[in-house]
């Protein structure tokens, strides 16, 4: 597949060893050490995914993430210092698809990257789902509502597909992590919650009173057929 990645990390040793590991895993890697440079590189050519450290000179990781999301749905994985701080939630809310916590094993990073990239490929039997004015085109990787493209990221799109394929069924966070993020190991259920929030923001007429994606308290989520 030879996906090409943009790695943004200010520590030279981490940058070098991560580049090495990613290249060994078969990725093409462009690496840089500050946020402003990252945005310049991103504008020059398309990347399949972006790996983004939070603490960066120039523009910090959050700013870079926000800038990229303004125009692109490219998968973004954040490299965060701590799993338990706001950093993670802020990154996810800004549209990052996933995160890894330092120190991380390169193998874990590669697994997450592959999972993120897999989300961007069409399912084996793509379908066209219609619910009223909502149209989900699995082959074309697009969702439209009332004729307008919703510009979903790959993660948001896969989440919508999984929920909408079985309307009325309750999905626990674990199952969604498994189906959408492709994790067989322990994932972070906040990934699901924040992604559902972002999806509602783009999908629902009134995101504060979701009509399509309902919360089943204490359990998970359910797609309501309109």
């Amino acid at each position: 597949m030879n996906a090409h990645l943009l790695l943004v990390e200010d520590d030279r040793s981490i940058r070098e060893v991560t580049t090495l590991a990613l290249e060994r895993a078969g990725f093409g890697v462009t690496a840089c050490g500050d946020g402003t440079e990252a945005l310049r590189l991103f504008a020059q050519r398309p990347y399949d995914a972006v790996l983004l450290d939070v603490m960066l000179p120039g523009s910090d990781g959050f700013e870079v993430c926000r800038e990229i999301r303004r125009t692109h749905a490219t998968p973004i994985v954040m490299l965060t210092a701590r799993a338990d701080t706001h950093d993670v939630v802020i990154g996810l809310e800004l549209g990052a698809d996933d995160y890894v916590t330092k120190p991380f094993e390169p193998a874990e990073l590669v697994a997450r990257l592959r999972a993120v990239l897999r989300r961007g490929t069409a399912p084996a039997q793509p379908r066209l789902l219609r619910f009223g004015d909502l149209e989900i085109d699995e082959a074309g990787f697009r969702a439209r509502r009332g004729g307008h493209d919703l510009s979903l990221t790959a993660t948001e799109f896969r989440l919508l597909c999984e929920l909408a394929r079985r309307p009325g069924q309750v999905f626990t966070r674990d199952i969604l992590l498994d189906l959408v993020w492709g994790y067989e190991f322990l994932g972070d259920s906040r990934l699901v919650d924040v992604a559902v929030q972002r999806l509602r923001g783009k999908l629902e007429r009134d995101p504060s009173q979701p009509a399509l994606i309902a919360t089943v308290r204490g359990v998970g989520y359910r797609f309501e057929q309109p």
Partner: protein
Amino acid sequence: MRVGAVAPARLRRRLAIAFVLTAGVSTAALAIGSYLIVRSSRLDDSAARAVSQSTFNLRFAAGQTPPGGLLDAYRTRGDFCAIVVPAGARPLRDLSCPTPKQVPSDLRRLVAAGQLARQRVEIAGRHELVVGGRLANGTTLYFFYDEQQVWDDLGALRNVLAVGWLALTLLAGLIGTLLARRTLAPVSAASQAARSLAEGLLDTRLPVAGDDEFGAWAASFNEMAEALEAKIAALSDAQQRERAFTANVAHELRTPLTALVGEAELLAEHAAAMPEEPGRLARLLVADVGRLRRLTDDLLEISRIDSGQERTATELVNAGQVVAGVLRGNGWSDRVELYADQVVLSTDRRRLERIVANLVGNAIAHGGASIVVRVTRDGDAALVEVADDGPGLAPEFLPHVFDRFSKADRSRSEGGSGLGLAIARENARLLGGDLTAANRPGGGALFGLLLPVSEPLHAGEEAVAQAAQDVDAHPSTKEE
């Protein structure tokens, strides 16, 4: 502290009672004393007048030979009535006067012996003083003086004194209570201040009012509170600095450690291809980097908990499913037996996962071959027990099993940071529960995690049970 809280009220009551007793007893003594003095003086006065009148009457009677006229003469006096008993003849008297039978026999005997005698009697509900005397010719005379007015006056005086005494005693009670409250106000203020100090309000001070003993006491109390506050501030500053330092060290270690972890992983792939000695060193290096990494992770976690800024994100979870997820995620499902009841509780899922992972990981590292996890409901608590059949915990180690950097067997604890169980317990306490350790009667260690089930919602349990069924029905799920 509780005793201190009660004492001022008791003391106040005692002070008030003492005040009332003093006032009551002294006013009662005064009242009774004055009553007795007035009483005896009035009665003596009345008796003296009766006796002198009687003496005069007797002298007058001695000069009158026919006794019949006597009564008329006496009647003109008017303030007494008389009975005349001539020797050997029928007694003479006014109809309004008492009969001779109403003269007490004691008095009659004294008069018969020739004395002038008197006695107080009550006739038809009225107090009378009877004076009797005998003339030389054998005629006996009795005079009845009405003393009712004296006794009425004495009764009125008694009533006034009793009412006055009662009023004074009540007033003393009121004043005593107020006085006791005012006197003891500094005590109750001090007791309150001490309590709020104990509760951690270190800036509590007492008002220093006046230069009496209480004022001096308040001043010393404030000095003590100030010293305490300064001492605790210094201690907590030092602790804060120490914790911040630990957090900073761990944080700073993370960047080079991230690079090291990556390098070690890549190096491990080459180790097999290296000549023997560099290959062995490479493997050692990789293992040590792993150890350093776990230690740093644990240090970071415990310093985060110490900082007190850890928040919990509660949701309804099925404890059995969480444990199953942890076992599966760590590849322990084949080694560990799980018996789980349906227990749904509102808790922080990630922390619960962390605790279970630490307990099971610990059992696998130190326990035996057979590890059993049980999830049960115990009243208002959810209980997760991890039992192994290993050597168990040494008795001298048992109280320190959750201490930081305590290791049962230092030589055998490679890989462990010595913080795992401490972290597990801190997390359990963050969730409002606790963690216990014990040895099983049949050998092996038993760790128990007790968590509150604060939301026993039937609707929630049904929903989770429903979700569990959905999981079973789902084609791509890996739940057992």
